């Protein structure tokens, strides 16, 4: 049993009024996906106040970066968001390339996009599956995981590993793909279209599932901006903000894809169901993008010359990409002399999502707390880094 004294050591605790009870949800709790902790003040089933407590998975990734050359930091970016590792690799590589002014061969860019879109599907599968599981449906989660296995098989062919791919290099990628990779990807996409239909019939249109998510945890567009939401969570609130369009990188301007937005399909704009359905639609869009990549990719070099001792010019650089959980920005400060960064700051979508919890949780039921939190698709290592 936790005492108030234990809690006070980390977060400020306010006195309990009336019938309130203090409940410690996490850091080890089935629905907090990793180690995230909320301190809930419950009045019966209603959550009166809530204090999110982050930091249990802090690994000083940003500090580690200061002690090593730029290229050595690449494997650490995998661990920023282990569900979407290639996206994080890509974000870091693009930031360094922007600062150093490095050129990237065409095929390498295509491969990067391919990897990151595959990883986006991978990540959204986990997101929607975990959401389904948190509202009590186990089977959709396992089905999502099953499809994710196929993606991880593809990623294994492409990058050499299933997770924590460490795929992207400065000015290139670490390895080219084998000949049959594209046909295998095509085969997977054909299968995945069918799967998405089945998944929708199984859970997306399920009455109980819709009832559990609609009008729960409504975040309006203004609120979402004030919480500095980004990515799918922001789009679900009705703001069509996608960095692949607004601040393009790689060959995304050439790609033909839609930006799904929350329209309150079952309830209100910005409710949990919108966040769910935006992710489902984004998977469809990612499939579209991958198909285009497959048709456009050409033979060519995958790596261009990078100086052995990479020293970034003095100054600051910030580059942002659209990761599955929102804007992933790498802010690199270089002193112009050292081969390692002076400071790296990583801006992640999950951390921004966490800022909304204290306000949105107010007045929710315990079951909704879980549903709202799952609908944000927060990954613990991305929050704490």
């Amino acid at each position: 049993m936790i005492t108030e004294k234990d809690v006070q050591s980390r977060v400020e605790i306010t006195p309990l009024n009336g019938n309130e009870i203090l409940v410690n949800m996490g850091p080890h709790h089935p629905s907090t996906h990793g180690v995230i902790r909320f301190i809930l003040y419950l009045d019966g089933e209603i959550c009166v106040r809530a204090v999110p407590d982050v930091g249990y998975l802090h690994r000083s990734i940003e500090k580690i970066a200061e002690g090593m050359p730029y290229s050595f930091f690449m494997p650490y970016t995998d661990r920023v968001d282990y569900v979407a590792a290639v996206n994080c690799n890509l974000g870091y590589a693009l930031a360094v390339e922007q600062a150093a002014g490095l050129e990237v061969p065409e095929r390498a860019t295509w491969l990067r996009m391919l990897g990151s879109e595959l990883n986006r599907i991978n990540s959204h599968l986990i997101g929607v599956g975990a959401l389904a599981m948190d509202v009590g449906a186990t089977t959709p989660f396992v089905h999502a995981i099953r499809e994710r296995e196929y993606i991880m098989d593809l990623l294994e062919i492409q990058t050499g590993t299933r997770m924590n791919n460490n795929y992207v290099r400065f000015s290139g990628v670490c390895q080219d793909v084998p000949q049959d990779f594209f046909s295998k990807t095509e085969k997977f996409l054909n299968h995945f279209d069918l799967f998405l239909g089945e998944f929708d019939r199984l859970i997306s249109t399920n009455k109980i599932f819709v009832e559990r998510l609609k009008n729960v945890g409504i975040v309006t567009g203004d609120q979402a901006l004030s919480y500095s939401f980004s990515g799918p969570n922001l789009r679900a609130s009705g703001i069509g903000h996608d960095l692949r369009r607004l601040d393009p990188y790689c060959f995304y301007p050439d790609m033909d894809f839609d930006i799904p937005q929350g329209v309150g399909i079952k309830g209100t704009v910005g409710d949990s169901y919108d966040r769910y359905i935006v992710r489902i639609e984004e998977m469809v869009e990612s499939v579209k993008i991958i198909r285009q990549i497959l048709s456009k990719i050409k033979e060519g070099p995958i790596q261009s010359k990078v100086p052995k001792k990479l020293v970034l010019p003095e100054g600051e650089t910030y580059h942002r990409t659209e990761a599955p959980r929102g804007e992933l920005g790498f802010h690199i400060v270089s002193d112009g002399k050292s081969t390692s960064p002076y400071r790296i700051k990583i801006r992640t979508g999950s951390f921004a999502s966490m800022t909304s919890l204290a306000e949105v949780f107010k007045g929710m039921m315990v079951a909704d707390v879980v549903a709202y939190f799952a609908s944000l698709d927060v990954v613990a290592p991305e929050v704490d880094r």
Partner: protein
Amino acid sequence: MTTENIYMLVYGVIYLLLLAVTAGILTVVERRIAGRMQSRIGPNRVGPQGAIQFVADVIKALQKEDIIPTDAYGFLFKIAPYLVFMGVFLTLVPIPFGAYVLMEDLDLGIYYVLAMSSYVVIGLMIGGWASNNKWSLLGGMRSAAQKISYEIPAALAVFIVVAMAGSMNFQKIVLAQGASPVDWFVFRNPFTFIAFNIFFIAALAEGNRVPFDIPEAESELVSGYNTEYSGMRFLFFFLAEWGNLVVIGALVTCLFFGGGTFWYEWVVSIPAPGREPLQFEVLGFFWFLFKTFFFVFVIIWIRWTLPRLRIDQLMDVCWKYMVPIGLFSSLGIVIWMYVIPENSGIDRVVRIVMTSLGALSVVYFHYRVYRNMKVTKAVFYANPFV
């Protein structure tokens, strides 16, 4: 001790063992079914096709340290699982698995079952409270609210059956039905069909099964009332839950699906059920078990498909829909029975129409499954033992 008492004791021990073993097997069956639904195998290592996995599980649980939290209320914490198990086990007493396969032929059988099933609440609440854990307490309170609420629609549904059968004795309720689907209460008239649906849903809710498993809602309350339990005591909660599946299946079979009545009259000219030769008695017993386990399968199937309701939605379903519909139907059945006498022409037509509708819905279901499989290009693996 009289001879009768000794017989009762022997029966009791046999029932207890049978229920425990059945519940154990059901855990394995459930996991295998879940595995099949989730594109995985499930337990298949211990024994042929994992059939005695539950023995291994029990042995494992028995070896665990019996942990009682320091701040828990020791005595109540200890007895809670047994109260729950007892509540489930005692409901089996008046259920006729066959004309002779029952422990006690109670005239107030249905009252008894309703009373005993609410007994479980006490155990769950004690378990939740005595654990001195807030998650457990929340789970215990939720289960109390849920079970007591759903007693009412269940009782209303049962009332309809009692009105039809004119008795609260399970044997007589079974005898009031027949072997053919047209004679089953579920297809007798629209009100009994509603009663069946209400009863089945309420039974799911009382058994803490998905979509009504909010007392142990894993993602919300960690594990609800049994969070602090481990080893043997946890096993008893577990046994009670799976034993309850059998109870739900058996009750539904008895009340709405004609119990173990078989088509004796088609085979031999002995019209009076309850006086068949032994082989037909055995046949009826297995027929009853078949129906029971069909419903157990349906419950398992529902569990691995549906999400969980929220507590207020759960209460809405009960008080805003099921109770009014149940009241309406129990009024309706009385009028129906007054207006349309049994075995009149209209009654027969209604029965046949209802049964055909039931059969049609089964056909439609299979068509939907077939179409879905076509759309998703799914492959059908007929062999359940892969």
